[in-house]
């Protein structure tokens, strides 16, 4: 039974997803796909949260599982994170597809199995599982981006995303191959043992490390590997954009933290003055700069989210880099940040969906003008989401930033400087996040400009928005439980 519980979140998505596929083949009329998909994510979320509170005894799980997939609390936390992102985006996606006549049942299965891939990716204990999870997740998202075949922009985005994503996959795979060549095994634990015993080919090992991290950096859209993101985010349908930021990015970060924790934490590669922290810190600084500066000029909110995602990748990388100093606390800070980021971006996306109606999607900052006055109930969650992305108290984003930046500042030296830079660049980010809020509340549509007409009320969209708002505010005013869970997960992850 331990085996079953160890993989319950994954099983529930796989089993119910397949069942849904069968039902779909025989269904005569439209079912509430978004509710069904959301429920499956909900089941997975509950399974993961349950496992967090009542952890599975890893020693009782067959080695055939633990060899490839981790079963510690960190694993369940990443399951919960992905299921949560999937839940909100799936709930918001249904109303969007219906409203804009883009209904395609495949989309829901792609969401489900892509998220499943993300869970495998984030749980990988083996280089092969890592790659399989990555591809499982990515292929689904490539298809999701391309789903709107009639839109040239969508197809362009999908092709670019596919090409550059494959490039990333290839780099990661190459790195894996080098690590395998260096250590003689694909198991992360095995590689670590070889490393500790100095039983690796050093030159191959550092090359493999660098390429593995490079591949992951492409997936998290850290600068300078971010160039696919703006086009892919903009070309995708709004809910897919949300999925990319709430699920794909968070899964990739969870995987990065795991790889780092298993392979490198505690080795000489994590020496702050000479090793990977310096490298990650450099990527963090570059990402924060590029993301925040790039977002300044964006009119399209999806594109803005892409750059903002690059900036957030920078903040997160800073937290990841600081893991050397206080592994447990800083890994927990990164987990916490991932939750606030997933909730915040899913909320923003759900709100953005609510602003548009058939034939009139609201995607530009200017489209939002006057919504605060005309539709206060819709505008408010968007403002909450923006404040959370900005990291303004009392939203979850504030606590995420606080924990990560504090961890970096306490790591000292160059990382304290980077934390300072991160704070300053967060100030810069206020410009583009607040511009959206200003447009909502202090602008009116210009003469001749079409007003955004929100779609009619929809239960599942309201649920998605309500859930997101609640979560973002709750994480901001009562962070203690999740902080506690995150540090438990970090402890589990670090063994």
């Amino acid at each position, binding site marked *: 039974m331990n085996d079953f519980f160890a993989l319950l979140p994954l099983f529930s998505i796989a089993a119910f997803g397949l069942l849904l596929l069968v039902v779909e083949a025989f269904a005569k009329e439209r079912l509430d796909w978004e509710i069904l998909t959301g429920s499956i994510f909900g089941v997975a979320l509950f399974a993961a949260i349950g496992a967090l509170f009542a952890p599975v005894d890893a020693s009782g799980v067959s080695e055939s599982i633990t060899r490839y997939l981790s079963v510690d609390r960190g694993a369940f936390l990443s399951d919960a994170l992905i299921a949560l992102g999937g839940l909100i985006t799936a709930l918001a996606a249904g109303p969007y597809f219906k409203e804009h006549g883009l209904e395609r049942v495949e989309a829901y299965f792609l969401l489900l199995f892509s998220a499943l891939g993300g869970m495998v990716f984030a749980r990988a204990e083996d280089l092969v599982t890592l790659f399989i999870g990555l591809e499982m997740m990515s292929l689904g998202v490539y298809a999701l981006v391309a789903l709107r075949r009639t839109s040239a922009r969508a197809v362009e985005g999908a*092709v*670019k995303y596919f*090409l*550059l994503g494959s*490039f*990333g996959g290839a*780099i990661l795979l190459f790195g894996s191959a080098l690590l395998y060549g260096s250590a003689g095994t694909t198991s992360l634990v095995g590689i670590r043992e070889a490393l500790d015993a100095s039983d690796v080919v*050093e*030159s191959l*090992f*550092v*090359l493999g490390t*660098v*390429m593995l*991290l*490079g591949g992951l*950096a*492409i997936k998290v859209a850290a600068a*300078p*590997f971010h*160039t*696919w993101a*703006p*086009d892919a985010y903009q070309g995708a349908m709004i809910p897919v954009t949300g999925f990319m930021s709430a699920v794909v990015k968070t899964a990739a970060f969870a995987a990065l933290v795991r790889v780092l924790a298993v392979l490198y934490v505690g*080795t*000489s*590669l994590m*020496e702050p*003055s*000479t*090793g990977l922290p*310096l*490298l990650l810190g450099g990527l963090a600084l570059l990402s924060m*700069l*590029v993301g925040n*500066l*790039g977002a*300044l*000029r964006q009119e399209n909110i999806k594109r803005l989210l892409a*750059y903002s995602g690059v900036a957030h990748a920078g903040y997160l990388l800073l937290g990841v880099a600081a893991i050397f100093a206080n592994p447990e606390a800083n890994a927990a800070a990164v987990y916490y940040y991932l939750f606030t980021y997933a909730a915040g971006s899913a909320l923003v996306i759900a709100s953005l969906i609510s602003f548009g109606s058939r034939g009139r999607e609201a995607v530009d900052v200017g489209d939002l003008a006057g919504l605060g006055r005309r539709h206060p109930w819709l505008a408010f969650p968007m403002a909450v989401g923006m404040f959370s992305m900005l990291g303004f108290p009392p939203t979850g984003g504030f606590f995420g930033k606080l924990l990560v930046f504090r961890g970096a500042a306490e790591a000292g030296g160059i990382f304290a400087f980077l934390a300072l830079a991160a704070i300053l660049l967060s100030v*810069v980010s206020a*410009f583009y996040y607040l511009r959206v809020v200003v447009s909502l509340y202090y602008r009116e549509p210009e003469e001749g400009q079409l007003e955004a007409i929100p779609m009619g009320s929809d239960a599942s969209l309201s649920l998605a928005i309500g859930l997101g708002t609640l979560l973002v505010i709750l994480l901001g005013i009562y962070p203690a439980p999740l902080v506690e869970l995150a540090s438990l997960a970090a402890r589990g992850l670090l063994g």
Partner: protein
Amino acid sequence: MGDSTLSILLLLTVLSPLAGAIVSGAFGSKLPRTAISAVAVGSITLSFVFAAIAYAAIGAGEALVYEGYRWITIPLSGGREVPIEFALRMDALSGMMTVMVTGIAALIHLFSTGYMSEERSYARYFAHLNFFTFSMLILVLASNLPLLFVGWEGVGLASYLLIGFWHSNLAYEAAARKAFIMNRIGDLAVLVAIFIIVQTAGTLDFTEINASVALFDAAAIDGLSMTKATLLALLLFWGCTAKSAQIPLFTWLPDAMAGPTPVSALIHAATMVTSGVYLAARMSPVFVSSSTALTVILLVGALTALVAGLVAVSQNQMKKVLAFSTVSQLGFMFAAIGVGAFSAALFHVLTHAFFKALLFLGSGAVMYAVGADGDAHLDQLGGLRKKLTVTAISFLIGVVALAGIPLTAGFFSKDQILHAVFGVASGEALAAGDRAIEIPGWAGVAALTMLLIAAIATAFYAFKLYLRTFEGEPRSEVEPKAVGRSMTLPLVVLAVGSIAAGYLWLPVEGMEYFAESLRASVLDALPVEGGGGMLAMILGTAAALLGLGIAFGMYRGATEDPLPNKLGKANELLMANLGIDTLYRRVFIAPFGAISRFVRSFDRETVDALFVAIPALVARGGAWAVTRLQSGVVHAQGTLIAVGVLLLFGFYFYPRLSYEVIHEGGSSAILLPESYGTRYRVDLDGDGRYELGAEGFESGPQRIQIANAHAVEGEYRLLIYPADRGADEPIEIALSGSPTMLTERQLGSHYLPKGARGSRPVVVYQSEEGVRIRTNLPDEDGERTLLPGRQTLIGTTRLYLAPLARVRIEAENAFGHVTTETAEIALRGRSAGSRRVIPLPSAGGAR
């Protein structure tokens, strides 16, 4: 006493108006007017009943205390903590105030239901008025200063809200702001006083403060003759000048008449403005500890009474006359405080509350009847007695009381004040408890003179007000409206009070309780022996009758006001409040405005340019660059990714070598960090043999000690340790054969002998056996030789000649690339740290 069931009454007294305020404020828009009236009047009446029962229950010298909860705890230095309780305390002093406040407030609430019946924001009005009463009760019932301050601020807020009640009128709004800002100026002083008290006495409870006044006899500031008591009394009085409208902060009160008339009656005549007097009485032991402060208060109070009384003479609007009259009467009260006659001042607070509330409500009734908006002009009134009989008669009673005509309440209380001041003027010795009070006789004479003139003016303007309003022929064709029962009833009650309240003070059988308990609750300054005499009463009565006579002579039968003609320019000056408002505008407001404008323009043009425009420009440039990077061409993007991965390669591929030199405990070492894939080899002395890694490269971390033996022969570094440079690293100087002058900065001017400053006195150069040092300093050898590994002193600055090691470090990375670097290290050696003349930081430097 401490009877817990009775003490609950205090809480109910306070909470009842609060409940009324909440009901009217939160649900007022949904309730009918009758319900709002019932809630507003009912809650205050209930409060009055509670207060009256509680007051009746306490005996002289007793107090009823409601112990609430621990509100805050103030930590002091030294681990002390000052607990602040939410506790209410009623003794004779606060009991009198509570009963008076609730009683008058109930009458004025009742009056308001008629007066404000046509007002749209009916509920808001009563919500504010109830809130005011609540705050006022907190103020008088507070058992400690911070809680009193809550009420103090609360009444200020209510006053602000009600002065600006008709906030669409910008002038009214400005009047409200003026009142609020002036009060803030006073609040500052009260806050500072609170800080001083808590620092000195370690308590903020009134009973405890009053019991520990001896602590305040210490000097306020070292080397200053002012005691803490003087400073405190003056700071508190400063607060009172704002709240109770004394010179110099009195100009807000006349403007405060912008509010509805019942508000003027309640807040700006009967209750709030007397809270300064209450505070002084509450802390009377502190005030009587300082004769200096008392003298100041006496003179300021008397001057205020005089100036405001004269200004009132020339005003020709009903409420303006009454406003200045209030300022003047408050001046009388503070003059009484100035001679330590706290109970007399409080008695005047009580009688004044009756007759001034009566006069304000009477003028409100007149304004209501003639439909005057804002204020009633005396030139347009007259002859109203026939139409408004009840109002006229009660108003006349108020006027008589204000003028201090014998047998009215005003007569008794004013007589008490004049009597006390007369005592000081005639040189009577005073003492409060066992503490002698020394107020100079000239101050007493000056104050008495001013007060007597003020009394003449008071009687004059009081009767002028009555005659011009109710007697003679009507000067306006408006047919006055009838005044309803809800308005006349309070007038009658107050009129009765304006006569009867005075008899509370008489030593009649069964009545002396009031005066005695009030006297027992404050620390009055009393004549040391006997005192008394009837002269003060005769003078006061004569002044009142004189004023009355002049008024009758001037206004009986007059249709036009003869005053402007008689006084000419002086009248204009008085009309304009002696130009004090203009003066304040020029002296305070204009410069402040100029500073504000300067700061704003500085902020806009300099700060914004530097810290907003330039960063914005940088950010915009960066944004442009980043978006340009996003070409949208796939192969370009792919290339960028490839370049990124190559850069990551570079991180490990590009040879890197980092090392640290540490000097510790007199020896030097090289620290080579741990770095994955990097190995090191070190040759310390340049002889081609490796001290580290002789067998092959070794991985980090490594620490290699360097000894003097590794030094290069014949090469040195001169290390300078200036004594004033703290724990800093020494200054290192490379030497050559030609002479080098050491600069003052290098030598550390601070510890150089005096004559040597600025003369660049030390020259060093390398010679065969070591370093030659030449100085032209007094008390130093002219020339000396410093050998390697030795040190010498110049003044207090230490020079050390360090052997130099040239260390070759090689690092090999994971790909077999070798990086080489040569480090020149001055060896500080063990001797560098020895033979210390003065304490120095470790010669090894900071590490």
